[in-house]
């Protein structure tokens, strides 16, 4: 345990007015360094690290006290003490700050560019944007030395229907000695597009950070906008949002369970799970008017109410999945040839999972019991009954089982919501803030916890918005998971993580 509590350390800084619901403090380099030491000692968990012109922000969560806070360090000299030097999970985030904002982490162990591939017409698009004056040298992959090693470069265009990214394998025969990822190929400049956007446009953009998590992202943005403007959302809207979030979790988990088994050449599971997924998407479209539920969660509430017919469609869906799913679970459990591929494959050390504050099924399959729905208890999860499944095997098999357990929990949550759904309005107009205001939101997507930081101008437009995907703290662990495994098991490991490229690249 760290000598001082997070609250005590942050209190030494200058509190920022109108930052809700958790506080933000402008801190000195000394406080900043104390926070870094706390991260390195596992006294608190890194939630996010991002920058803007002349300022770098660090969001942390202290598990014991439940304290969440943001520390902001002014960078008059264009640099800040590296967090990654003492706490590796921050390294890619720092490289991103250097790329997008131009603030340099001092004494950082890795200063290679990350999202900037030298192909944009601008440098530091979120900082003092300038035209590039020099061409970027070719990317240097980390050196791997030893006899009989060979390299396998994969991507950015992959063999399947998946997002682009580059994987550089160094293998010794069949065994992977090192995997190095290079991401950033789908960087769309979303944070720049958000600057100055109206709330309506910003909600659409944030809803497309990662298409598979559109509900969770839209929810994070809506909750942040509502916290900043101190707008109370009607109860029915909270419940409908949770309903959509659970439908999204259900659809993705069903798809993933099938796809993981398919990567072990067990196509039967994929065929059946894909049917379940399709039924969920069709029920979502029948209930809310969009298969993936895009643009349904909006600041102030939801854009589509659920009709009585919609309720019965979703009730039938739950009954149908309850009828079909157990046989698939038994099939998975009883197929030894499949378990032979998934058990003990892609193991991630629980110490790494804790260090990286890794969320979602990757974190919970490795013993880290964090789930924003439970830990923060935002409505209506505070009054719903559900368990947070937890495992310690931390391999592909564990991540499959964790999803199976979460499917069962989501079915129960959907049933409870449909039974207790309060009546009333589903949307209110957002208050115009009048003066700049800020907020932080943390919600549980199917992949893990999504952090979103927001600053609004007085007229209600976005001044700065930073969404942080759960994949930031999962992708690096995939590099660890594959070590010592055979190259042919990489698709299995990768699919069991199902990291987001788009959510990470922004």
């Amino acid at each position: 345990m760290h000598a001082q509590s997070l609250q005590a350390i942050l209190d030494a800084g200058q509190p920022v007015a109108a930052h809700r619901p958790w506080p933000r403090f402008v801190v000195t380099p000394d406080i900043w360094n104390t926070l870094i030491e706390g991260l390195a000692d596992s006294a608190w968990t890194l939630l996010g690290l991002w920058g803007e012109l002349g300022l770098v922000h660090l969001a942390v969560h202290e598990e014991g006290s439940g304290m969440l806070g943001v520390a902001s360090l002014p960078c008059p000299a264009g640099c800040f003490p590296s967090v990654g030097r003492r706490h590796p999970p921050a390294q890619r985030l720092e490289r991103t700050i250097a790329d997008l904002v131009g603030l340099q982490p001092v004494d950082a162990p890795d200063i290679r560019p990350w999202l900037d591939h030298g192909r944009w017409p601008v440098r530091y698009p979120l900082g003092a944007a300038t035209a590039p004056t020099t061409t970027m040298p070719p990317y240097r992959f980390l050196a791997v030395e030893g006899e009989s090693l060979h390299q396998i470069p994969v991507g950015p265009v992959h063999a399947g229907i998946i997002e682009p990214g580059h994987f550089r394998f160094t293998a010794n025969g069949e065994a992977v000695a090192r995997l190095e990822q290079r991401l950033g190929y789908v960087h769309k400049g979303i944070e720049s597009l958000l600057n100055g956007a109206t709330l309506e446009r910003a909600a659409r953009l944030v809803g497309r950070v990662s298409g598979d998590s559109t509900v969770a992202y839209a929810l994070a943005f809506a909750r942040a906008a509502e916290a900043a403007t101190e707008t109370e959302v009607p109860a029915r809207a909270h419940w409908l949002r949770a309903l959509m979030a659970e439908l999204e979790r259900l659809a993705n988990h069903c798809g993933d369970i099938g796809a993981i088994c398919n990567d072990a050449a067990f196509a039967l599971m994929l065929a059946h799970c894909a049917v379940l997924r399709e039924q969920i998407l069709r029920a979502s479209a029948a209930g809310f008017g969009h298969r993936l539920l895009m643009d349904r969660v909006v600041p102030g509430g939801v854009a589509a109410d659920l009709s009585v017919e919609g309720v019965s469609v979703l009730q039938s869906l739950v009954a149908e999945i309850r009828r079909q799913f157990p046989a698939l679970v038994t099939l998975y459990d009883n197929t030894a040839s499949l378990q032979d591929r998934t058990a003990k494959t892609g193991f991630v050390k629980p110490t790494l999972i804790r260090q990286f504050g890794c969320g979602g099924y990757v974190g919970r399959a490795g013993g880290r019991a964090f789930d924003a729905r439970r830990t923060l208890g935002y409505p209506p999860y505070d009054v719903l009954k559900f368990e947070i499944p937890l495992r310690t095997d931390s391999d592909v098999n564990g991540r499959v089982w964790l999803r199976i357990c979460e499917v069962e929990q989501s079915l129960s949550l959907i049933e409870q919501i449909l039974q207790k759904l309060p009546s009333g309005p589903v949307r209110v107009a957002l208050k115009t803030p009048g003066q700049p205001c800020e907020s932080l939101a943390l919600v549980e997507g199917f992949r893990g916890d999504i952090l979103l930081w927001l600053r609004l101008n007085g007229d209600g437009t976005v001044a700065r918005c930073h969404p942080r995907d759960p994949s930031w703290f999962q992708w690096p662990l995939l590099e660890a998971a594959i070590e010592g495994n055979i190259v042919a098991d990489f698709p299995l490991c990768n699919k069991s993580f199902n990291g987001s490229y788009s959510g990470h690249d922004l």
Partner: protein
Amino acid sequence: MHKLLLQNLWRSPMTIPAPAPSEQALAELGAQVDQAARRRLGRSLAIRQVDAGSCNGCELEIHALHNAFYDLERFGFHFVASPRHADVLLVTGPVTANMREALERTYAATPDPKWVVAVGDCGRDGGVFAGSYACVGGVAEVIPVDLHIPGCPPSPTQLLEGLLALL
């Protein structure tokens, strides 16, 4: 008899020059071969999907084409792992600057004749991401596009309708 042979030897042959083949017969035969080929080989397209910066929404719906409800392969479509095996490139996304070269090289690696289908509102003109420093904006900005299938994302049915029009 010798005289007769000698005369024939000195005389030019009576055989008329070969006529050009009948246009009508050729057309008829050609149609038959074409029909046989289409019956045996045709109505089949190999598709290579390229994500050039999408949010992954379009990929989810393209995946859905494989499920038992849509069963894409009954129409002769199948997805291939290499552009060298492809007739069609199915491209999604607003084409990020970081993916531009990969898309160009994938196109160059696809043998002629080839078609390019741009999927989604992003593939048409950049969609919600149009105007970003990091996006080129629309597949047609980078490679020639034969067909657009709009939608955000297009549903599997819309995707099927577009692909069937290509056959």
